[in-house]
């Protein structure tokens, strides 16, 4: 009996040991698999990533991280609906689990971002807010939230998020693009105060001074603008964007001699094929300078560099038209005036139609009208998007016509997904 008991004890120990080994092996294999999957996703090898996840999910179907990674792969393959479903499963699997705060944040952030891409803004906001409740310093999430508010034209809410970001802002300039974005909302004076706060925290930054200079310029505060633009150049002599911006400002202020010197120093960087990000600004400044000197042919030559790359910019078409008029090439100018007017009107009608349908469900006819405007603006992808919406709406209209109780229509998601950023 004792021997039997002893034997059973040994067996139990052996079994526990085997189980522990197996479990340890499984855990380590699981961790290795998850690590491998992340790498594969980063490398874009989605099939391999999915194969690796398959056995793990078969073995542990409620594995949160595996489900999350599956969603991440789907997201990378632009399978947004599938990704959202996976993220939601991963999120619900974590329910009631106090651990894994980092994974939870990762899931909620990804879910919010994907919902944002799908135009499900209210739900996206819910997940972003959840992340921020637990981790107020999650700047990437604030950034997404802020971008979402801007997209919805909820400017004051975007401002509030930006203010929160600035509270935890420490040393980098990652908020700068956001502030630049905010310049497009109607509060330039308030926006300027943000730049000033950034400048206080990061004194002497050329990029910040440049931004401040441009903001003052937009506000018509030319003395301050000049001071900051000069500051941007002097604090970083190699900031060529600042040099071009200063030159453009000086031309506008009729200080052409200094502007000319400033542009001349940049000419060597403008060899053919140069891919500097201030290229258009440089050619534009050169065109304006030549125009001021009444060297209209030279101005056209410089401007053509921009018109070629931005054929749908009515402002540049009109600028070239003006130069042609000064050369008394009236017919050529007339063609450009006509093109610019057509583009501008198409833009305006597009804005009007978008504005109209953003407030209420559009009719299929309105969708077709917008699609037509998009085509006139040579935006075939937008046009196709609106035609798709139009077809969907048409089907819904048929349902409405044949049904006594019309369905609730929420077309926000299709607008945001298929109509482009208008």
């Amino acid at each position, binding site marked *: 009996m004792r021997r039997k008991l002893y034997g059973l004890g040994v067996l139990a120990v052996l079994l526990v040991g085997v189980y522990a080994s197996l479990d340890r092996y499984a855990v380590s294999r699981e961790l290795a698999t998850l690590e491998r999957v992340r790498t594969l996703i980063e490398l874009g090898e989605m099939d391999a990533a999915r194969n690796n996840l398959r056995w793990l999910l078969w073995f542990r179907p409620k594995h949160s991280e595996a489900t999350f990674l599956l969603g991440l792969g789907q997201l990378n393959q632009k399978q947004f609906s599938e990704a959202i479903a996976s993220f939601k499963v991963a999120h619900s699997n974590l329910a009631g689990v106090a651990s894994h705060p980092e994974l939870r944040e990762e899931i909620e952030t990804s879910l919010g971002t994907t919902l944002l891409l799908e135009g499900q803004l209210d739900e996206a906001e819910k997940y972003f807010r959840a992340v921020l409740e637990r981790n107020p310093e999650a700047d990437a999430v604030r950034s997404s939230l802020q971008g979402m508010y801007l997209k919805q*034209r*909820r*400017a*004051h*809410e975007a401002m509030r998020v930006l203010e929160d970001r600035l509270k935890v802002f420490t040393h980098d300039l990652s908020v700068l693009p956001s502030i630049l974005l905010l310049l497009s*909302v*109607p*509060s*330039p*004076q*308030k926006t300027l105060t943000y730049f000033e706060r950034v400048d206080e925290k990061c004194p002497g930054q050329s990029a910040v001074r440049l931004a401040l200079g441009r903001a003052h*310029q*937009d*506000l*018509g505060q*030319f003395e301050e603008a000049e001071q900051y633009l000069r500051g941007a150049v002097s604090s970083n002599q190699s900031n060529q964007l600042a040099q071009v911006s200063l030159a453009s400002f000086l031309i*506008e*202020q*009729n*200080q*052409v*001699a*200094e502007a000319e010197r400033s542009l001349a120093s940049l000419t060597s960087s403008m060899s053919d094929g140069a891919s500097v990000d201030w290229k258009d600004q440089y050619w534009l400044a050169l065109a*304006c300078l030549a*125009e*001021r*000197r*009444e060297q209209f042919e030279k101005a056209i030559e410089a401007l053509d560099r921009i018109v070629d790359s931005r054929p749908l*910019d*009515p*402002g540049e*078409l*009109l*600028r070239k*038209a*003006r130069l042609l*008029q*000064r050369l*008394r090439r*009236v017919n050529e*100018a*007339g063609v450009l*005036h*006509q093109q*610019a*007017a057509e*583009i*501008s*009107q198409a*833009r*305006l009608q597009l*804005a*009007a139609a978008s*504005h*109209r349908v*953003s407030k209420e469900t559009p009719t299929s006819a309105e969708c077709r009208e917008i699609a037509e405007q998009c085509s006139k603006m040579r935006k075939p992808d937008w046009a196709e998007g609106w035609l798709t919406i139009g077809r969907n709406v048409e089907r819904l209209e048929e349902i409405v016509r044949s049904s006594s109780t019309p369905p609730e229509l929420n077309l926000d998601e299709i607008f945001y997904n298929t109509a482009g950023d208008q």
Partner: protein
Amino acid sequence: MSHLVRNRVMVGIGSAAVVASLIWLVLPVAQQTLPRNNRPIAQPLPRTPPKDKATPESVPPIQFTRVTQSSGIDFQYYGNPSPEHYMTQQNGGGVALFDFDADGQLDVFLVNGSHFELPAESANATNRLYRGGADWQFSDITVAADLEAFGHGMGCTVGDYDSDGFPDLYVACYGRNRLWQNAGDGTFEEVTDFAGVGDELWGTSPAFADLDGDGLLDLYVVNYVHWSPEEPPCMSRHDPPMRLSCSTLERIGQSDVLYKNLGDGRFEEVGKAAGIAIEEVGKGMALTIADLDEDGRLDVYVANDTTPNYFFRNLGSMRFEEVGVAKGVAISENGDVGAGMGVACADYDRDGHFDLSVTNFRHQINDVFRNLGAAGFVATNTELGLDYLSTLPLGFGIVMRDFNLDGWPDLFVANGHIWDLSPAGQGDDYEMLPQLFLNEHGVRFREITDDVGEYFRSRHLGRAAAFGDLDNDGDFDLVVAHMDEPVALLRNDALPEGRVLRLRLIGTQMARQPLGARVEVRIGDEWSIAHIPSGESFQASHDERVILAVGDNARAATVRVWWPGGEKEEWKNVATGELVYLIEGQGRMALPHTQ
């Protein structure tokens, strides 16, 4: 009280009649009629070449003093935004400066608004006429002049359509427009029905001018958009949403109307036949009528809100062709279709061509279109330094005249938002500072708003703005209408650099009041041009007299007049300093300076 006023008016009329009869007795002096086809083009002044920091060494001071409080004008616009924020409550009422009783003193007419719930009648909020006297004293003679009228008034215009020597009055409305004939005895009689000019669309800015050259003033009425107070309210996209007046963007425009004067007190609407009622319907706010392409015929330029501006080229025989795009004046410099609120017209660079300027919405640039003659117009906002300075305000009335009498037309803009967005906390101003820009020899406009008087240092809801020499001191004063405060009378206290030439034109074969006529003045080798304003600014009508600075030593000038649709005529040795009447085909006469 009204009896006393009426007596005063009658005395004024009596003296004016004597003066008027004297004018007609004067013999021609050194007049010369030029053949029509031998078109004299003003020799352009050499334009100051671009230079660094172009600023003249000494800048003549411009000072405006607000004198409303002591003037007797207590007009307060009635149609301010109500909680319902109807669309009709955003434009304010018009202003007209004209000498209705021919006493040599400008009078002021102000248009009132209304509310749908509390109509103007219930508040006795009538249009008002103030008779001008000496020392900036005005008396309200609305009742005595039989001009009491209520409604959703918008712009107004003045023109002697019946050629009796007394200017008549037309008011555009949301609803039926109205015409009052000046009886010449200090009273007006409403003749809308008989004249057939009671257009019922939403009229904004009207203007009289002889557009077919038949010697009679025709009437152009700019119309706005289709809208009804029964329509659902418009809400902003703020959180929480705010109720605002509806955006023009989503409205359908209304065709402008053109009334041809038949010469017997009646008009005929000819917009469609004339080519004014075109397919691409604009949403009009303002206009100016002048010979912009220098072919001897008056053209019509219309500022449209969120639709391209019109340039109706006059083809003759009351036919027009819309050429805004081809002329380069349809859209803004940056390609935006602007919100076209007001229009100014003057030769800012003194090259012998009339230039245009248009006020637009907040976050849009105001336009300046330089007239190159045959090559059309080019936008010059940026090179003049006016782009950034005009993007923050929302401009309405705009006046381009030489306020400091240095020979270069300056620029005044009345600003104010149509929506009070302050609850949204986005930093959008509702009331805004007006702006004054000094013309630096046609090369640059420099903002001098801070330095030109108290009125310019406070914020207003500026709308219509009219110019005229209200105190007969030889410079242009301003009258600015607001939404929420009494109208502002701004006395120009600038000290002129030299003498001025002051002219009033009287047609005989052509329209008696030659609105839109081009005037060319030569002093030595230098030419300047001016015109009799027709339309201009926003919902306003202006002093018909020409005032041009001629420098310190010029005692006399050569003056050429292009009578609209008629001959050109030249006068030599026209005296400077005093007001001179130039009478078509009959010479000139200088009148004593009326104080």
